[in-house]
């Protein structure tokens, strides 16, 4: 079968078309929106690794990930430092109490 654009009759008919009809407003945007909607409906659900790979391929991902990991590191460091400081201070205060109280180990 010959392609439609090789049909001489069709070509003649197309040439005879005045071609001055104006498009409705936002015609192009509407077409793209319909294409996007159709692709979204037709696209199969992505698996987690594929979704992750897709997400990490986006340019905004690197700074977002780095910021999240940086703040997680800062938070973890702050939390553990508080714990360690409280533990050491409790230990040192007990040591001081024991150093001045000769009955520390054997309360009356």
């Amino acid at each position, binding site marked *: 079968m010959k392609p439609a654009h090789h049909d001489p009759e069709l070509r003649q008919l197309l040439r005879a078309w005045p071609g001055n009809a104006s498009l409705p407003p936002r015609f192009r945007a509407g077409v793209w929106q319909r294409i996007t909607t159709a692709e979204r409906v037709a696209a199969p659900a992505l698996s987690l690794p594929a979704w992750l790979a897709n997400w*990490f391929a986006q340019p905004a991902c690197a700074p977002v990930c780095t910021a*999240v990991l*940086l703040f997680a*590191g*800062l938070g*973890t460091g702050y939390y*553990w430092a508080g714990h360690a400081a409280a533990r050491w*201070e409790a230990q040192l205060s007990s040591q001081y109490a024991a150093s001045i*109280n000769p009955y520390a180990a054997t309360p*009356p």
Partner: protein
Amino acid sequence: MKRLVTILFLGLALGGLAGTGVYLARTTPERAMLCCPKPEQAWLQHEFQLTDAQFARVQKLETQYQAECQERCRRVNSTNDLVRRQFTSHAASTPELERLLACAAQLRADCQLRMLEYCYAVSREMPPDQGQRYLNWVCDQVLTMPRDGTMMHAK
């Protein structure tokens, strides 16, 4: 995939470095205290905000108190030995046991009194608000008696 691994690796490295930095910065005073020859004294200076001059005077008091305390402890130990020997060598209480027990109780009271006098002396070297806070702390930590003032067997 390579991009993912790179981002994660760099993010984790940066987070780890930042966390370590915060940890080291926030625990600097405590780590410095632990490295001192007498960490408990360093804690006292840090906790009750003593200046170097005040801390030097407190250390002098502490040296004097510890020397006297050792002597009192030696006397308490020898009295306790005598009480133990007296108790186990007789079938009933003796006037000597009674005298030794009174002596041991007197030594114990004297020991506690000297300790409290030392605490008062230390508190006087501190700024007034810190001195009061120190005495409150001593009361909770060192003065080992029931908080409501009642003995256990009286309940």
